């Protein structure tokens, strides 16, 4: 049995010996090194660009600007605003915006060339936050976006006004803000481009969204899609971010085209912070109504997302943020008003949870407050309102499997919640939070499934081709386990190819925790078809007219005839070389029965929904403001756990990323300037920041996912900010509604809060000070 067995990643030996190739490692004969010139201004008109001095430097082979490339505006798919460009030709809209690119024989020559490009800018007024951008008469970042509104989404379900007016209801209200953080994947963005003499472009990219980037890259270069081939080598982490067509891809392609030589661009870590796609920062105003029996009645949300200079994926993010958290609890009345605001900051991208950690931070705070108002145990209140299996949520989401109530019970039990809450200790607290995540979220009415092919070579090994990307999360290992399970052959006999748009089928991209569900089902269907073919071929080889063929241990048996058998290799060999035979090659197609998210109507956008509950226990040092995390207890409903070794670490890693997001990580801007760029100076957690984490799973089996599995990757991070903020509040009587909660903020809060609030036993308090840091 391969499913459910702790399995190291299939390419672990290559990785541990340094033999795995990532895009940053690729070299080609005659390869040139590219670099991108970035705007030093937050907002400015480009008056002129003089590249002549740069072009004269020995070793410089090409210099391109936005005036050389096709002047095309494109977006993240056709549903998004088409506001991006490869290299700017009219305006720059953030410090770091792409202006020109050079190719040279080595990196230092390329860097020298950048310094020699003379750009004349005419600075324009800058907009660094929501308020400035939304102010009357504010300068416009994009002429076709009045008021700097990049997009809106508003809808209502049920009767929210009547619910809030209902006599006797408890209403809580608050505003929450979050900061920008970087995904901090270890491998920087990278691209290697090369052209064949017949005018075809091949790009190797450090991104796992091969099909999507092929479309966007072709659009940005005004090329037919069929002339672009996108190949994905190993990717050194992503956590959502690397799916966009940042300027690096068209710029590299153009440099290679002009020079007729392969060209490679690798971002510096500094560029990562200035010009890649970090997590969106937002301001969430939230109001919740609850009946005195504790049942949730209504919720109203006003959301502002700072999308930076270009919309990128932010429109999808707004949609998802508007819906997702509403399905965690039973709540009948919802009103949502969300706006995306352009500012002079870098555009934003996906990061583990896709808006979920931010929304959860706000929603769960209000549950804690309601619990206090009603004098209820906060975990108990969540349990009372938790969605359950078979529920259809306020948006029409059909929860075919839901382990959330069980998850709450598990963390209550494992953390010693009841006992610890009864034994209060000063400066010591507990917090609880939960989350729901999507699995394979449909974002178009068109094809939203996955396709995989499987070939069995004549020596009995399996070659799997899927366009669904591997970026360190273990997709290839999961796919190999599925094939091993279906064909009963050893894991070592299975090869999963990396995506290559010339070879692998179109794939949607690795978001919404969809790879295991959607990609995994496609691989499973292909393997099932291969098994059937093997059985048919075995019947021919073993000359069995009637009688069932069974497959076990890599051999095909005739039932009732123990001596009649052949190995998978023998059968595959026979299939290929017998008269009228052929290679065993199958296709697995998955297309989910989901409907696109549409706020106007009820929809069920995901094949499956995953859930998690967490308890955090902290001790706060009143002298230093330091938060010591005594433990995190997690219970995850990801359906059947296909690979416990990888699942555990996925949860642990997302917990740590959540801790960073809550307590330390911050891309801090001051007067518009990003103050620090680098791992250390933006608070990236290291080994000492990892507390003891208890990882548990609910006993859930999803009817749709392969073997009952759902997504696990995005469950660990979303509850953490709320659970930690709750625990800190429990410890010191101060609720933080703004992230990150740094020691400085805690000290400031402790010195400004009344000593009564500090000294009280939090369990008996029904008043907490709210602090916006």
């Amino acid at each position, binding site marked *: 049995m391969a499913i459910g067995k702790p399995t*190291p990643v299939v390419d672990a030996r290559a990785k541990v010996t340094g033999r795995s190739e990532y895009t940053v490692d690729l070299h080609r004969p005659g390869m040139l090194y590219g670099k991108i010139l970035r705007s030093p201004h937050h907002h400015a008109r480009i008056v002129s660009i003089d590249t002549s001095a740069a072009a004269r430097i020995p070793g410089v082979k090409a210099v391109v600007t936005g005036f050389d490339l096709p002047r095309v505006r494109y977006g993240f798919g056709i549903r998004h605003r088409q506001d991006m460009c490869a290299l700017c030709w009219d305006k720059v809209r953030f410090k770091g915006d792409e202006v020109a690119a050079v190719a040279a024989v080595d990196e230092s020559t390329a860097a020298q060339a950048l310094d020699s490009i003379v750009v004349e800018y005419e600075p324009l007024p800058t907009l660094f936050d929501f308020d400035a951008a939304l102010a009357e008469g504010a300068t416009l970042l994009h002429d076709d976006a009045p008021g700097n509104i990049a997009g809106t989404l508003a809808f209502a379900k049920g009767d929210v006004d009547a619910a809030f007016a209902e006599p006797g209801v408890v209403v809580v209200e608050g505003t929450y803000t979050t900061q920008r953080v970087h995904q901090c994947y270890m491998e920087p963005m990278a691209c290697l481009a090369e052209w064949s003499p017949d005018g075809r472009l091949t790009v190797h990219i450090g991104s796992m969204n091969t099909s999507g980037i092929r479309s966007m890259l072709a659009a940005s270069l005004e090329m037919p899609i069929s002339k672009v081939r996108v190949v994905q080598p190993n990717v050194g982490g992503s956590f959502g971010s690397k799916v966009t067509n940042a300027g690096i891809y068209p710029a590299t392609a153009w440099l290679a085209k002009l020079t007729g030589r392969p060209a490679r661009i690798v971002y510096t870590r500094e560029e990562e912070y200035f010009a890649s796609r970090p997590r969106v920062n937002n301001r969430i105003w939230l109001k919740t109504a609850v009946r005195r029996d504790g049942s949730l009645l209504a919720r109203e949300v006003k959301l502002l997302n700072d999308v930076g200079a270009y919309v990128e994926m932010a429109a999808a993010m707004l949609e998802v943020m508007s819906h997702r958290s509403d399905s965690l609890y039973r709540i009948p009345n919802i009103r949502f008003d969300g706006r995306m605001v352009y500012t002079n900051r870098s555009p934003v991208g996906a990061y583990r949870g896709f808006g979920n950690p931010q929304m959860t931070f706000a929603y769960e705070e209000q549950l804690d407050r309601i619990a206090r108002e009603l004098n209820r145990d906060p975990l108990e209140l969540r349990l009372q309102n938790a969605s359950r299996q078979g529920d259809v949520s306020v948006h029409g989401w059909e929860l075919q499997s839901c382990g959330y109530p069980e998850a709450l019970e598990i963390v209550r039990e494992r953390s010693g919640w009841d006992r610890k809450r009864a034994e209060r200790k000063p400066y010591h607290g507990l917090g609880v939070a939960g989350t729901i995540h999507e699995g394979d979220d449909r974002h178009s009415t068109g094809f939203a499934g996955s396709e995989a092919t499987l070939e069995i070579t004549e020596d009995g090994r399996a070659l799997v081709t899927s366009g669904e990307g591997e970026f360190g999360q273990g997709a290839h290992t999961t796919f190999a386990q599925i094939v091993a399970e279906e064909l009963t052959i050893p894991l070592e006999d299975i090869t999963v190819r990396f995506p290559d748009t010339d070879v692998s089928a179109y794939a949607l991209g690795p978001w919404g925790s969809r790879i295991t569900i959607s990609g995994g089902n496609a691989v499973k269907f292909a393997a099932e078809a291969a098994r059937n073919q093997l059985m048919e071929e075995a019947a021919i080889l073993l000359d069995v007219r009637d009688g069932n063929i069974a497959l076990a241990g890599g051999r095909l048996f005739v039932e009732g005839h123990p001596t009649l058998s052949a190995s998978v290799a023998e059968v595959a060999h026979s299939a290929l070389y017998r008269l009228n035979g052929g290679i065993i090659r199958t296709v697995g197609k998955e297309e989910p029965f989901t409907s696109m998210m549409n706020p106007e109507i009820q929809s069920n956008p995901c094949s499956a929904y995953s859930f998690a509950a967490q308890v955090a226990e902290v001790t706060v040092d009143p002298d230093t403001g330091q938060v010591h995390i005594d433990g995190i207890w997690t219970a995850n409903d990801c359906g059947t756990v296909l690979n416990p070794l990888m699942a555990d670490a996925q949860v642990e890693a997302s917990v740590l990323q959540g801790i960073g997001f809550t307590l330390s990580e911050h891309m801090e801007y001051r007067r518009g300037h990003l103050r620090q760029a680098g791992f250390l100076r933006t608070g990236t957690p290291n080994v000492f920041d990892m507390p003891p984490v208890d990882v548990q799973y609910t006993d859930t089996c999803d009817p749709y996912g392969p073997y009952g599995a759902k997504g696990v990757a995005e469950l660990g991070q979303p509850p953490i900010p709320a659970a930690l903020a709750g625990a800190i509040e429990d410890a010191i009587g101060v609720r933080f509604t703004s992230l990150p909660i740094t020691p400085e903020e805690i000290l400031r809060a402790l010195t400004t809060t009344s000593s009564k609030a500090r000294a009280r036993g939090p369990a008996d308090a029904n008043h907490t000070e709210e602090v916006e840091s």
Partner: protein
Amino acid sequence: MRQAIVLQVNSERHYVSVRPGDTLAQVLRERLLLTGTKEGCGMGECGACSVLLDGRAVNSCLVLAVDAEGHEIVTIEGLGDRAAAAEGRAADGTLTLLQEAFVEHGAIHCGFCTPGMVVTATDYLENSPRRDREALMRAIEGNVCRCTGYITIVAAIESAQAAIEREPAALESAQAAVGAAE
């Protein structure tokens, strides 16, 4: 302006002409094509580029190539052969105990931090005067991993440590390797 230097990497001599400002990481990766050594930040903050310099782990992005001349450099690609040489075996591509432990414990996900982590932990196992959880964490404090949450990495290193301590031969060979390098 270029300068010809000789670098001793994984027991092989390489003649390269470098600029004075070229870092060891750049020369290893771009000139010698030893791309197993990763560069995650270029400013000594992530540890991905760690290599052994005379048996001790250094961030190769902070070492100038010209300063590495005359020193014994071992990269992730050379760890297996180094262990084999220390044990008097022919180089056969076998993983070190530590590398095996990384594989078995699931300490490898995207793999980008792995070479630096393994190199740093090799230094810890061979040279740390104290070998306990705290010392181990201090040793890898400068190595960033974003995929695992460090738990499996710590477990892998501790298990390799236990294996070495169980088998004096393994410990001796590790010490011999240090001696050979120095």
